[in-house]
């Protein structure tokens, strides 16, 4: 299988606080990988390091055979290949729904307005938001905002989608609509890297699950292995805790 992202000895420190320690893992093309773990374990930081919103302190990130942490590497071109969905949606407040999905295409990918609109409409239909194209972000509910954010990321035709706890800021009844969209995406063969607290969802959609604890990857494997027969004591502890909370 072709490795699309290969992370080698990645580390990140904030001051004296070591958030990520010697992370090694890779994502294959077309794979859906879920990263689980308790708060503060470094999941989000790892994701943010991958698209360089945080600058890694050490290590290498190999994207399609090239180390993107080389000084000469074009960071912006690389970022367009990664679609990012944030916990807080981060829709552009000054644009309407359609504008949110078009501005990146026009300004960064230099697509024509017509083409950008066509692509945007295609993905807004995928997430079921095509009726809201003229709405401003503040007129939408959390679930709707997140669906638009997904469409915005997809409109750039990324090769990898990164999801940073996409349902954590949502009301419980809105989690379902976002997960439904994501579930459909996993079936389309897109490479996806998802940081999530939704254990049921992770178990159902992922090809591989990564469990992080205190800045290291404690365990990784197939969902069956992680959820049914975890080898590590801390994985067991974590799963027990989260399952208790859900009951």
């Amino acid at each position: 299988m072709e490795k699309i992202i290969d992370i080698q000895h990645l580390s990140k420190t904030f001051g004296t606080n070591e958030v990520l320690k010697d992370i090694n893992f890779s994502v294959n093309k077309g794979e859906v990988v879920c990263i689980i773990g308790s708060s503060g374990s470094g999941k989000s930081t790892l994701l943010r390091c991958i698209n360089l919103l945080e600058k890694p302190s050490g290590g290498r990130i190999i994207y399609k055979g090239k180390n993107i942490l080389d000084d000469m590497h074009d960071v912006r071109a690389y970022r367009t290949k990664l679609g990012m969905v944030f916990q807080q949606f981060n829709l552009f407040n000054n644009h309407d729904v359609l504008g949110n999905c078009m501005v990146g295409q026009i300004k960064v990918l230099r697509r024509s307005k017509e083409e950008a609109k066509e692509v945007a409409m295609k993905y807004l239909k995928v997430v079921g938001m095509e009726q809201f194209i003229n709405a401003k972000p503040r007129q939408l509910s959390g679930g709707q905002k997140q669906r638009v954010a997904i469409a915005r990321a997809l409109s750039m035709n990324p090769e990898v989608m990164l999801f940073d706890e996409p349902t954590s800021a949502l009301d419980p009844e809105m989690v379902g609509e976002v997960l439904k969209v994501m579930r459909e995406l996993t079936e389309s063969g897109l490479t996806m890297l998802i940081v999530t607290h939704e254990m049921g969802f992770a178990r159902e959609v992922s090809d591989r699950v990564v469990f992080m604890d205190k800045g290291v990857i404690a365990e990784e494997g197939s969902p069956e292995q992680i959820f049914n027969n975890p080898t590590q004591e801390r994985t067991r502890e974590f799963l027990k805790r989260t399952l208790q909370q859900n009951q």
Partner: protein
Amino acid sequence: MELSVIVKTILKYWPMFLRGAGTTLFISIIGTLIGSIIGLLIGVIRTIPVPEKGIKKYILKVINAILSAYVEVFRGTPMIVQAMVIYYGSKQAFDIDMTPLFAGIFIVSINTGAYMAEIVRGGIVSIDKGQFEASYAIGMSHLQAMLNVILPQVIRNILPATGNEFVINIKDTSVLNVIAVTELFFQTKSITGINFKYFETFFIASVIYFVMTFTVTRILRFIERKIDGPENYILYANQMQVETPEDALRRERKRIGNY
């Protein structure tokens, strides 16, 4: 106060008042506009993230120091003094001959620019970090993020403060009478030099000033509401032809009212 004196003064000197008010408005509009542009530029430059190494870092530091000095100097000295220094100083020291009107606009602009620079900087800092991150994550450069995402939001957010500056400028142009700009205060003073009715004449001037500032405030409030748009999004507002009972009632009332 005699009403007849006021009426007489208005009837006799209205062209002078009008010209003065016109000049005041002209200087404050142009000054506020240019000042806002200066402020936007400086605000953007001062919020460029400083790189960790390289020459760029030092160039930025020098530019930032110069801009800080500009802001501090012009915020820290009275406009009336600046007017004297710039108008007479440029003539005597550098032999630059400015018309009073040009000097007036120049002084108001750089003054407003100094204040607006801080307002804009505050506006940029107050924008949620997520807006920057989403822009960067989509592949935008700092400049693209600024132009397409951040500044439109900043401009909306600083509109009330800009309106404030505008109102202050309308009032503060009166100090430009020291360099003989024929704005409203200067004109009023000239009129009193002819008719010696200080109270009545200046009372008219104060009413004109108030009307100008009040109108400007209302117009800006209207623009703010226009930009914000409605609170809720109405699905299919144009396409759905189904009438609600309220609409039917309203239509019926209108029909009856027409008879």
